[in-house]
């Protein structure tokens, strides 16, 4: 089975801090994704990556950046955390080349609170 592991289930940070959310997958997948999930808004794509050192903006990239130095690891960075970034963050991965139709496999999520 595909395993997508997010480093923290719950995280509390302060406004203005730089925050790192880490995600690791064990299936040698090419594609990795970061979403945030908010009540009434569903899942929204922040960034994705289809190869090491490659990244693409999703629907809501403002206030975020990402890093993919190794194939199995995809990090989401909040450069200067703000209270409106309090949310559930979900990481996912999928196999195949870029623009493939393979299903995405999700981690358990990180519930981030910014105080």
């Amino acid at each position, binding site marked *: 089975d595909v395993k*997508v592991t997010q480093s923290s289930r719950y995280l509390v940070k302060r406004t203005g801090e730089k925050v790192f959310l880490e995600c690791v997958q064990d299936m040698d997948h090419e594609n990795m994704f970061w979403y945030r999930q908010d009540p009434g808004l*569903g899942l929204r794509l922040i960034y994705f990556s289809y190869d090491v050192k490659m990244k693409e903006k999703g629907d809501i990239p403002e206030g975020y950046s990402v890093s993919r130095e190794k194939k199995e690891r995809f990090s989401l960075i909040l450069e200067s955390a703000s209270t409106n970034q309090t949310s559930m963050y979900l990481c996912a991965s999928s196999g195949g080349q870029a623009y493939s139709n393979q299903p995405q496999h*999700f981690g358990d999520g990180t519930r981030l609170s910014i105080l």
Partner: protein
Amino acid sequence: AQSVTQPDIHITVSEGASLELRCNYSYGATPYLFWYVQSPGQGLQLLLKYFSGDTLVQGIKGFEAEFKRSQSSFNLRKPSVHWSDAAEYFCARIDSGYSTLTFGKGTMLLVSP
């Protein structure tokens, strides 16, 4: 932009009763369709997928879904619901030439005794 609509925000079903969750997609060439389930505090788990071929697809946990091109629908069904099926269900699509999923807003399933 291509979209996915789940018309029902909440549905309550009695345990043992049948279930149908609705999903409609906006027109697009060769959509690939998925259903995911999310239990409270957890990530999303893939229930089933439709790429092509047989329009009735079987998934895990006794779920199935039927693709109907004429109705632009991909409804999820289960003949007999168990209390452990209470969760939020998401329908999603990938369009040919794109690698990103478009999700519906989700349907919360409540199971009554």
